[in-house]
Structure formats: C-alpha cells, structure tokens
C-alpha cells in the first residue's frame, strides 16, 4: 500500500488544532505523542487525568537518571517537569473534564461513526475492560479530536456507519485526524478537509465506510 503518515506526523498535525493557551488532554497511544510537538509560538497546557496540568515532554528509556516514578502522565509514563506545573487530585482532574473546562481532548479510537459516535475500548467475553477516563473526556471536553490510523491492521475501515465496538460516547467527535486524512464531523455529514500527500479523494473514500463530502477548501495536509 502507499505510504501513510507516521504516528509522529499525525501527532504534529493534531497539535496544529490547538490555539495558544488551550488546555488539552491527550489520550493513550498516538495522542500522547502530541506533547513533544508543540510549536514554540504556542503555550499549550497539557492536562492528565491522574491530576496534573502543564506537564512536559515524556522521558526516553535512556534517561534513567531523570526518571521519577511520581512524575508520570495518565499513561503512567515519566515526563519532564516544567515551570507552571500544577498537581491536584483525580476528583478535581475529572471536575475539569466533566465541567467543560478543557478546550480539547485528543483521543485514540477503534472506530468513529458517521455521526461522530466514538468507540475506544473493548471488552472480552468475560468482562468489560479499560473504560478509563475516555468516557468522561468524550462527554466533557469542549472539542473532541480523534487521532487514529485510518484502517485496521486487517485493512478494514475504522470510520464506519455504525460502531461495532462498545461506545465511549455518542455524537461527541468533532474532528478525525488519521494517517490519510483530516475529516470534520458536521451536521451535513463527514467533511473531508485534508488528504495526506499523494492520496486521492477516491482512494480515501474506498477505505472509509460512510460517504465523505469534500470540503470547499479541500487541500493537502500540511504542518
């Protein structure tokens, strides 16, 4: 298959959505990468649901001397403290989320429906597992951005008419950023705004279950 955007480039594209001063929560997986790609002209305050605002870049495994297991984000990965950091308890962290105080959240997903339904957790035959904070974020953040690969490893569309996985929240997604496209969820349907370099609209549509509407200002994705 043709080359698709790397996770890093996807994360870079997502950070373009942030306005100076935004408070943003990053979900587990690709979204977490955004913390490393904030442009220098923007002051973005990252929120993690375990009780921190303003955390810095994640530490690499070779930075053992700087790792402090008490300085971790919601994905339990050590990060670099930075000025303006603020610690609080998880109840307050979720008050921020539920109370509509977050400007945006970037979440991973298994599927997004044409209406913006989000499915980002699974349950086995035995038990539900891993609801985490996703349901709270999907309901509470002012803007829900999904950052995910456009298709599954088996090549099946993740943007679907109806989610097969259990829902995280209904009609909550505002924008979908994938390794192939940027798609807005609007009243009129799914609006294709940007395509990855080298990809044709028809090719993206073929990997997307519901119909995409080309935006008037449709253009190639850029950073």
């Amino acid at each position, binding site marked *: 298959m043709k080359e698709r955007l790397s996770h890093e480039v996807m994360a870079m594209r997502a950070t373009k959505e942030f306005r100076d001063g935004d408070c943003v929560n990053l979900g587990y997986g690709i979204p977490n990468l955004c913390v490393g790609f904030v442009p220098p002209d923007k002051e973005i305050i990252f929120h993690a649901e*375990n009780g921190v605002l303003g955390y810095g870049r994640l530490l690499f495994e070779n930075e053992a001397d700087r790792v402090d297991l*008490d300085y*971790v984000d919601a994905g339990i990965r050590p990060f670099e403290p930075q000025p303006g950091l603020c610690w609080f308890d998880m109840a307050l962290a979720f008050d921020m989320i539920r109370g509509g105080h977050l400007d945006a959240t970037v979440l991973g997903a298994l599927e997004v429906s044409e209406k913006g339904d989000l499915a980002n957790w699974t349950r086995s035959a035995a038990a539900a*597992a891993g609801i985490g*904070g996703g*349901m*709270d974020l999907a309901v509470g953040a002012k803007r829900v951005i999904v950052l995910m690969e456009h298709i599954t490893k088996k090549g099946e569309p993740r943007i679907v008419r109806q989610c097969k996985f259990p829902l995280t*929240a209904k009609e909550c997604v505002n924008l979908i950023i994938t390794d192939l496209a940027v798609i807005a969820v609007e009243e009129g349907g799914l609006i294709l705004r940007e395509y990855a370099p080298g990809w044709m609209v028809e090719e993206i549509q073929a990997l997307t279950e519901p119909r995409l509407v080309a935006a008037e200002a449709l253009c190639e994705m850029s950073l």
Partner: protein
Amino acid sequence: MINKVMSNFDDAVSDIPDGASIMMYSWGAAGTPQNLIRALRDRGVKDLTIITHNFIPAWIGSHVCSEDEIMTPYFLKGRIRKLITSWPRPIEAASDIARHAEEEMGKIELEVTSHGILAERIRAGGSGLGGFYSPTGIGTVLEEGKEKRIIDGRAYLFETPLKADFSFVRAYKADRRGNLIYRAAERGANPYMAMAGEITIAEVAEIVGVGEIDPEVIVTPGIFVDRIVKIHDGGLGSEKQRKLLCQRYLSGEVEK
C-alpha cells in the same frame, strides 16, 4: 494526646476481616500503598471487595514489575470476591499477566466504570451525599441498570456513593494527627479515598512534628486519617528502592 502512628504494617491491618471492602489507589508505582497491600496479602484474608482505579501491575519502561518490585492491587488476586474499577486488565493483552488477570475476572464479580464516575462516587461517599447525576456514559453500556434523568435538557445517569470499611492511602509526609501531604502524582485518588474509608490507614515516607507542615498546604486534614505507618528506609516504594528499580530497568543493564 493524639497519636495515630503505628509501628508496623501487620498491626495496622490486623483487624481487617474476610469480606471487608477496601479502597486503594494505584497508578503504576505512583501513590500506591504498597506496604499495606502486601501486609493485607500476607494476612491471608479472602472474599474482599476491592475498589481501585487500576487493577494492573506497575511497569518501568517496558519491564512489568513483580510484586516484590512494585506491589499493586493486582497482586491481591485470588482473595477478591468483588472488584470495582475503571481498568481491570493490562494494556498488553498477550502477556502472561493479562491471561492471569482474565482468569481472575472470570471468578469474581466485576463492576467496571469510568475513572471520573469512580472518583466522584468515592467523593460522594466520603462527603455524605446520597448520590448524584453524571453525564458520563449516556448511550453506552454504563446506562445498564441505572436511572436516566433529563435535567435542563441534558441526559444524566444516577450514580451511587461508594464507601469502604478500610481505605489504604499512600502519602509523602504525615504528622501524628494524620495531616498528610503528597508528592506529585502520588496524590491521585488518595485524598478522596482517605475521606471514604470507615478506617483510613496511611503509609508515608516521613513523619514530622505537628506544625512542621505549612497549614496552607496540607492536602488531607488529619480528621480523615486513623492510622499511620512509616515506610522503612529501602522498603517497598521508598525513594531508595524506586531509584534502584529505575536504574536496573532503564539503564540498559537488564533487558526484559
């Protein structure tokens, strides 16, 4: 004179019976009352109800820690009758640990909810409310069995308060009155879990004199805390032990 300090963990958990409900925080290594959990496991009680945000082992880099490295609620498996949690199993589904977790899930009563609902239910329990309406989970499996109510045009689910017979708490510093402060992500759920235990037991890195903690920065006032035990130097979760673990698993000396 008030003195809530006890000399060891075994004594601190010695009156926890079979069938007790216990809440405890765990976010990887951060804020987990490791020594209390180990003492509870060693006590050999069963049929516990465990309330915890995460039910997984901790990890350092890509190394998944054993119970001798970082003790978490997960290692109480086999002693649990009911588990209330937001994250019941490891993220890597293929591991041995994931299989063991799955087996455990098959044997117990499992109640899964979101982190936010869990936090607020515990806070409601500790603060004497009868329940509350939350917008989280509308249109999802969390609706099952819950009252749905439209308030001011928006849909909410009724959530009940959560309390426990015991709360295990981990903090940074305490005084003999039970005033607590935390260190960074150690805070997490510890402050509201401290409020919701009939008996709240704290393990702490340091015990200081009354008045030594600035009255403006106490996070958990002593009114919520019943027992305090100091973690011994080099013990589970102590700074020294954690530094050693980080060096071991992040320096490249040991490959997993």
